[in-house]
């Protein structure tokens, strides 16, 4: 019993740590991509890289391939559903601990009574009503976390399909056109012993 509990706690910690790491890595990746855009330094991303980024976290591939609105929408949808899932799951676990303790007391009531004395029908009725309320809340949280993870899985699946079959071709061609027309090269230079930045654009 103890080992199972410890195992579940370890799994839970791993899950939360993994999700946190992914969220952090993804948000860092997005900010990096935006910074690069600020420098007007475009980079061509291959379809394979876009798919790999999309596999890492939904929306990253689309964002780097030029489909910013779709990418950001996918990213935010996935992040929101994962946050909702983790939140509902943690709430569920917390409420479940209380529910299990109350259930244990309820089962003992008939034979052992309570700390205040013998068990009674009126106490049992009150505890039963409270347990039913708690059970309903647990059901709601269970439904919520299931819905959240289903949405997360759906968004992820759509994102992967989109990255493999639809996203990269249009995004890449658009980017390639844009690159051909307005590619700006950034390089450092020294003029009269003064360091500077040289911007070169081919027309």
């Amino acid at each position, binding site marked *: 019993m103890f080992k199972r509990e410890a195992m*579940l706690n370890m*799994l*839970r910690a*791993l*899950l939360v740590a*993994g*999700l946190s790491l*992914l969220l952090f890595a993804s948000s860092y990746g997005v900010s990096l991509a935006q910074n690069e855009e600020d420098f007007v330094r475009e980079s061509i991303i291959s379809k394979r890289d876009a798919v790999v980024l999309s*596999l*890492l*976290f*939904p929306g990253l591939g689309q964002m780097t391939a030029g489909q910013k609105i779709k990418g950001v929408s996918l990213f935010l949808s996935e992040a929101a559903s994962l946050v909702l*899932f983790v939140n509902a*799951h943690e709430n569920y676990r917390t409420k*479940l601990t209380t*529910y*299990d303790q109350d*259930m244990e007391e*309820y089962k003992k*009531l*008939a*034979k*052992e*009574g309570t700390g205040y004395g*013998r*068990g*009674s*029908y*009126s106490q*049992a*009725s009150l505890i*039963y009503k409270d*347990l*039913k309320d708690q*059970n309903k809340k*647990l059901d709601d949280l*269970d439904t919520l*976390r*299931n819905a959240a*993870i289903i949405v*997360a*899985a759906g968004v*992820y699946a759509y994102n992967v399909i989109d990255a493999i079959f639809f996203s990269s071709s249009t995004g890449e061609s658009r980017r390639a056109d844009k690159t051909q027309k307005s590619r700006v090269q950034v390089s450092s230079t020294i003029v009269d012993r003064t360091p500077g930045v040289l911007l070169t654009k081919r027309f």
Partner: protein
Amino acid sequence: MAPIIILAIIYGCSKDHSAPTFSQYEETSEPTDVVAAYDKDDDSINVAWTMEDTDGVENYLVAWSDSNVFDEGKPGDQYVKEVGDTELKKEITLDATDVLKKMDLMYADKDSFIVYFTVSAVYTNVEFFEFIGPRAVVDRNGTYADSALILRK
């Protein structure tokens, strides 16, 4: 990302709770026909009741309150069978002063009180140990019909 989602589905979506049941407690029943009467000469209250199915019943608990919504009033109670008793009686005679004392009601300026009585069977069998069953004569609002009017003057 995929392993994380799969892990979340496997671990996160297992329902670990089941609904509570009340069936165990529904096996207990309450006494019927509770009658409480005040005897002014003895300053005592006689409470009597009937109970058809006494299987598992080892005692009765007579409880009283000064409110007809029982739990909202000042309560008092007494077990019918005391240590050394062999017979399980279905009536009890209570001293009116003791009844009022247990409710902390000793108003000198009051010459009459209404006290509401109920009786519960106390079960001891395979499933229960000294478990106080449901109260007699209770309706949906928690009110009790059986009362005794105590006239002190």
